[in-house]
């Protein structure tokens, strides 16, 4: 295995790890809000969060490129004020994959929270505990399987993404060239052996992650809440 192969794999995992970490932080409050809010336009927000599941990745990629473009307000703000250019950079694909994997983090968490009986939350409130304490000490510890599912799904989905990264990041070694794109590239150059190495690694990782999810969820049935 040569150094560019290792570099590409490391970059892939770095992207997946950072995407998952960022999404865990922003996904929890979104999931909590979606699980309990009675806001009238909640279905619209839910639809927006879930859009990446149904939209072609190229559509998301296209909009991200438009957003990053120095000709548009956000892009020009980044370029002129912060001196950053997101298109075809690692930061650019990181933001894009955060957007693209959002539903894979939020949905399991939201379903997990909804499956808890309301009385658990209410019992904690009547015991004088704040919503924050209740969330971290009562609600989250009781949806561990959902949290593990959300993390594993987000990680696996980020490793598996292709279209968004290609549109937003291109294929720059060490910057935006992730494993899924490398496979495409190697096949185009008829390097089937290298393509095969990447493919086997992605296959095994995805299999391990999904097996984890299913075994965790199987156990969950055994520890019924009440």
């Amino acid at each position, binding site marked *: 295995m040569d150094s560019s192969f290792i570099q590409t794999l490391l970059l892939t995992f770095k992207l997946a790890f950072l995407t998952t970490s960022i999404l865990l932080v922003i996904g929890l409050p979104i999931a909590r809000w979606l699980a309990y809010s009675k806001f009238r336009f909640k279905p619209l927000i839910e639809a927006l969060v879930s859009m990446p599941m149904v939209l072609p990745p190229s559509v998301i990629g296209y909009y991200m490129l438009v957003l990053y473009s120095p000709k548009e307000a956000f892009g020009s703000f980044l370029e002129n004020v912060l001196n950053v250019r997101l298109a075809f950079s690692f930061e650019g694909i990181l933001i894009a994959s955060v957007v693209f994997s959002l539903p894979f983090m939020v949905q399991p968490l939201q379903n997990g929270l909804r499956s808890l*009986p309301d*009385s*658990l939350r*209410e*019992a*904690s*409130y*009547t*015991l*004088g*505990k*704040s919503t924050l304490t209740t969330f971290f*000490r*009562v609600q989250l*510890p*009781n949806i561990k399987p959902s949290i593990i599912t959300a993390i594993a799904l987000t990680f696996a989905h980020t490793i598996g993404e292709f279209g968004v990264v290609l549109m937003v990041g291109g294929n720059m070694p060490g910057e935006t060239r992730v494993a899924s794109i490398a496979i495409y590239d190697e096949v185009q150059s008829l390097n089937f052996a290298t393509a095969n190495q990447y493919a086997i690694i992605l296959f095994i990782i995805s299999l391990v992650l999904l097996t984890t999810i299913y075994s965790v969820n199987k156990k969950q049935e055994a*520890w*019924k*809440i*009440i």
Partner: protein
Amino acid sequence: MENHLIHIDIEKLMHTANGPMKLTVKTEIGSGELVALFGPSGAGKTTLLRILSGLTDPDKGVVKFGDTVWYDSEKKINLPSQQRNIGFMFQDYALFPNMTVEENILFAQTVKDAKAASELISIFGLNELRKRKPSKLSGGQKQRVALARALARKPQLLLLDEPLSALDAEMRVMLQDEIRHAHELLGTTTIMVSHDLNEVFRLASHVVMIENGEIKKTGKPETVFSDNTISGKVQITGQIARIERQDPINIVTVISGSNQIIKVIAFDSDLENLKLGDQVMVYTKAFNPIISKLG
């Protein structure tokens, strides 16, 4: 014990399975009482309990605990549950599955006090179970933990939502004693939702009878459930479980409490206002009942 009269004067439109129903409650509850909210299911008992705890908001009205205003729609005051210093025992007990019995009780304390927690665990006979998770407890054990947890923060008002409905008759009697014990020991004003007559008679010092969202009667259990115009020598209250026609009479089976079955002969004219499930009183006045010690 400080005197904390609870003043309730609220209105709320409820959406029940039988269409909208207005809950209108105006009453006062004395300090240190053990009050039973009695009535058929869907009458608004649990909603009233939730309004007192701050988990449900009424449409308008006032709830005062002593001099503290908990809710006042005109002054826009609505103290959150966290600040009401109550203990609430849920119908499903709502024990935290991720914590052991001991951790559930420690979590409930406002100021961590391992000694007080140990005492509470001993009082409720939970010593053997302190390291167990709720999923490994029986219904009766869960109920005891839930009661201990509700008392752990030394509440000024204890609210029990049908605390014993899920238990069998024997366990029920045992735990009724425990609730009465806890009440005598701590003197906390306690409000309990119940539709079990036996339970109400055994525990309550005061009954608020609610039907269709309105208070029908309040007072001591004997007064609320007995018609005072009858000078009966023996009075048993119960519920009609069966009406059998055996010409020319009817045999009515009345179940009193949870275990006493009484069969009474009734003529058609007696049955005019009676139907299955009605709360009734069986009484006799012609004979002098004989009393003798059991066992």
